[in-house]
């Protein structure tokens, strides 16, 4: 609960810090705010389930773990943004303020205990993201992406709100445990159909936000059009929060009707895996490939939802952490490399921008390689154990066929993740030595180190949650 209050306050402070003459104060101040929020988050560790805001928000160790991942990824992204110093048109104070506000929304989504809280959280997060997507005002692609994201997002929100309405109509409550009580003892009748319809509509809204197929159409365009730093934010923070919310929703309210929805989620997971992985193979742009890879990772996380058990909950936490770390690395290196050459005034985000990266920039090539290996799920990286935990949790539940499809699809993933490794090590290119700010380097090395550390010792946090 502390980070929500703190970040709301800090967001306003950040906006007004933008008026100060020195532009260099913003980034350190924001990073300090995030550290304070992170510390405030873990003040409640092991205090047991606590309820806040008239029982609308629940804080337990699972919530705190998700909050920790979200705030840590946000910290890394803020740090590699470099305070937006290189662009004279930018409004760093507004970007940081909006990102802090969107974090408030993400934390609400993680800890909600009341559907209205979920809705408010989703909206706070989404509205800030629509604005940030279009923050590059002079760039047509960015404007187009923002408009697409906004229109489709607003539409999905409509579905979600209608779903919540129907759930309220069926159960007479917005509270998760009361819906749970109703759904567990429900007789088949008109009310059960309203509940099913409401659940499906709510799921559509949430699955849109985590870009699961067939609600993924906005993802490649929006990820490509948005400034890379906000794409990173979108693909880590939003995805983690979305899956935390989905897990809480399904495990908190709908275990009683598991037989109804698990096949829906399973079908969507398979579709998402197919669309994400096969779509990614045909991309020429690295950034667009990462968008499709984001879709496919949503598919893996959906498998963990179909299992819906204690191990699968831990698997989601671990996977989100592993995915966030490697995604930040991948986008971080992309931001550096793409600035070197431009095509028609745009940064070069194609695969060939990485040609010959390893010769002059061995560190960047190594960071990129580790993150690609982790995303592909190669052993000794965190990504491998993330996939491993998810597959075992699904297998324990007895859902073998979906695991088989997922393993097949992750071998497809190796093809497109290795393309960029081949580009950077084997192909000839004329990339010169890229100057990397020390802080940027620290963040990249830290994320890589954590990826390898969790790959070697995945049990490091076991038993904590």
């Amino acid at each position, binding site marked *: 609960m502390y980070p929500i209050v703190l970040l709301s306050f800090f967001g306003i402070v950040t*906006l007004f810090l933008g008026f100060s003459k020195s532009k260099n104060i913003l980034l350190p101040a924001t990073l300090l705010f995030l550290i304070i929020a992170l510390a405030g988050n873990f003040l409640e560790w092991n205090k047991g389930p606590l309820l806040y805001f008239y029982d609308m928000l629940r804080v337990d160790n699972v919530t705190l773990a998700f909050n920790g991942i979200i705030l840590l990824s946000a910290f890394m992204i803020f740090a590699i943004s470099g305070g937006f110093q290189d662009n004279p048109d930018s409004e760093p104070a507004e970007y940081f303020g909006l990102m802090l506000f969107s974090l408030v929304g993400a934390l609400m989504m993680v800890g909600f205990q009341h559907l209205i809280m979920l809705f408010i959280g989703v909206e706070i997060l989404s509205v800030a993201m629509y604005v940030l997507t279009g923050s590059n005002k002079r760039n047509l692609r960015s404007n187009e992406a923002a408009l697409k994201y906004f229109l489709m997002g607003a539409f999905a929100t409509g579905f979600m709100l209608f779903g919540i309405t129907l759930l309220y109509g069926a159960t007479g409550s917005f509270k998760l445990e009361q819906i749970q009580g109703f759904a567990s003892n429900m007789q088949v009748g008109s009310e059960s159909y309203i509940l099913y319809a409401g659940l499906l509509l709510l799921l559509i809204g949430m699955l849109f936000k985590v870009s699961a197929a067939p609600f993924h159409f906005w993802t490649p365009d929006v990820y490509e059009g948005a400034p890379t730093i906000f794409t990173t934010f979108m693909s880590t923070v939003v995805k983690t929060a979305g899956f935390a919310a989905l897990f809480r929703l399904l495990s908190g309210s709908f275990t009683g009707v598991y037989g109804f929805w698990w096949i829906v989620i399973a079908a969507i997971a398979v579709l998402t895996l197919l669309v994400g992985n096969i779509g990614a193979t045909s991309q020429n742009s690295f950034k667009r490939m990462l968008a499709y890879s984001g879709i496919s990772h949503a598919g893996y996380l959906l498998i963990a939802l179909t299992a819906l058990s204690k191990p699968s909950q831990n698997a989601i936490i671990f996977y989100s952490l592993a995915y966030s770390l490697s995604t930040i690395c991948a986008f971080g290196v992309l931001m550096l490399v793409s600035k070197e050459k431009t095509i028609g005034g745009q940064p070069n985000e194609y695969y060939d921008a990485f040609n010959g990266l390893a010769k002059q920039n061995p560190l960047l090539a190594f960071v990129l390689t580790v993150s690609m290996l982790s995303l592909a799920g190669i052993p000794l990286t965190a990504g491998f154990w993330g996939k491993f935990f998810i597959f075992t949790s699904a297998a324990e539940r007895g859902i073998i066929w979906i695991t088989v499809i997922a393993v097949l699809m992750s071998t497809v993933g190796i093809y497109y993740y290795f393309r960029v490794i081949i580009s950077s090590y084997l192909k000839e290119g004329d990339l010169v030595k890229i100057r990397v700010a020390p802080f940027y380097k620290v963040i990249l090395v830290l994320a890589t180190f954590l990826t390898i550390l969790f790959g070697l010792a995945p049990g490091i946090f076991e038993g904590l949650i």
Partner: protein
Amino acid sequence: MISDFGYILLFIISGLVLLGVMLLVAKFLRPDNPNEEKLSTYESGEDPMGNAQIQFNIRFYIVALIFVLFEVELLFLFPWAVVFGNEELIAQTNGAWGWFAMAEMTVFIGILILGLAYAWAKGYLDWVRPKQQIPEIKSPVPADMYKQVNDRYGSK
């Protein structure tokens, strides 16, 4: 026994019926000899020209934005006022309730005011003005020559 929603439904139905009946009665009673002038959109007004979908002045956007801001604020104030003045709750809490509700609303309005102040300070509320084009005249006759002419002959 009908519920409150039932009454609303009754109102809707009776509204529709009343409208229909009145139009029908008027149809039978009125004289009916139209001409082109009478059938135009604004009778005895100007003839509409062109399309209604024109570019609106950007100024309306700011007006609308400020309107929405204060409208939402007011919408929240109404339900708050009811709870704020709830005598039962005030009596139960020895008056602490009123202060609590007051503080909550102060925080809410305070945040909105901060937002408004931010937009104001950033200049987002400034009226968008078209840039005046000052005509420049390049005359071969220097300006002070006119003055000299006026000084010499103007007084007479």
